């Protein structure tokens, strides 16, 4: 009986230890989230060329395209619900134009699909035009860019989150906006 009681207490203490550990992890996660929401965690031009692979993967061209360097990158702070607006400008060494268009994931402008147009408007509404090297809305509409929309979230007909990529063949620059509201 005494041995059973002893094992019972060991079980309770183990559960207690695990719950305290969970509480500590949760506190750390909350602190991490709070840090993510603070202006201190905004990162500008902090990405290395190897980070480009992840961005190229969004467009399905990670194996065929090659980025030379980041001309500009900004990772914004996150709100509690994950709202953010990240901007990336990549100088490309190689862009597989034909393969990208053939994959169906990339398309040539001008954009006819309303969801795509709204996604571009939504992405540019975060002040992208003010960032170095970013094209204006007029340039996006007029220039023969290639577009890719890895992700668009709609609420009704309103875009609430989108990843928009567009490539300028003339300057060999890939522009990416990842935003959520």
């Amino acid at each position, binding site marked *: 009986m005494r041995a059973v009681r002893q094992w019972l207490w060991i079980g309770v203490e183990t559960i207690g*230890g695990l719950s305290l550990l969970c509480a500590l992890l949760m506190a750390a996660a909350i602190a991490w989230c709070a840090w993510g929401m603070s202006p201190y965690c905004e990162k500008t031009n902090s990405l290395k060329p190897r980070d480009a692979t992840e961005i190229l993967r969004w467009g399905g061209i990670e194996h065929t395209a090659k980025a030379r360097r980041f001309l500009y990158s900004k990772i914004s702070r996150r709100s509690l619900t994950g709202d953010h607006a990240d901007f990336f400008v990549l100088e490309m060494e190689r862009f597989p134009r034909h393969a990208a268009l053939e994959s169906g994931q990339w398309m040539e402008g001008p954009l006819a699909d309303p969801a795509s147009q709204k996604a571009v408007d939504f992405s540019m509404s975060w002040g992208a035009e003010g960032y170095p090297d970013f094209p204006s809305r007029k340039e996006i509409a007029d220039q023969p860019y290639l577009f890719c929309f890895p992700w668009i979230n709609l609420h009704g007909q309103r875009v609430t989150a989108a990843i928009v990529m567009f490539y300028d063949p003339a300057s060999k620059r890939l522009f990416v906006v990842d935003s959520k509201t």
Partner: protein
Amino acid sequence: MNEAPLPSLTAPQPARSKWLARLHVLLRMAGIFTLTVFLLSAFPILWKIHQHRIQSAQPEDFTHLLNQGNINLKTRVERIAHEQKQGANEFVELAITPFADTALAPSALDKTFENGWRPLSTLDASAASLVGQACRYARSAGASWFPTEETAASGSMSVNVWSASLKHGEMNAVNLLLCDPRAGRLYSANIRIR
């Protein structure tokens, strides 16, 4: 034969064992607290699951769809006409009390666009295409009672695209409501494509 003397209970304990004893008390308290919270919160959930198993779905289980469409004050669920679950996808047809007013009728919505409800003809091409895809997807998933795209566009129905996501331009997820307010029918499609 000499036996080692038993430690005295009244003797002062070393500092290390004192802290160890405190740790044990702390762990026990945390354990008891966790178990109490777990039991208190798990019991109602387990009871609900048990109830759900022995009963089929009730009309009140779908009032969240009325809330989603902001029509909970205008109508109520009378019965579940059809329900189909297939993996993460769920399709429902509810018989609802016909609306007393015509606020959701497509003719009225042309002007008001109340609470996100619209006639299909006024949706932009992307949203209308999503509704069409959702209708086809529902019917191909076996929900043959779900309206066709043509029925949805017939003029008697209004649509509420609650949320949708597109992956490389293709429908990835959609959660929408279709309502025929005069006939008293509400359809819901919740689609998640993996």
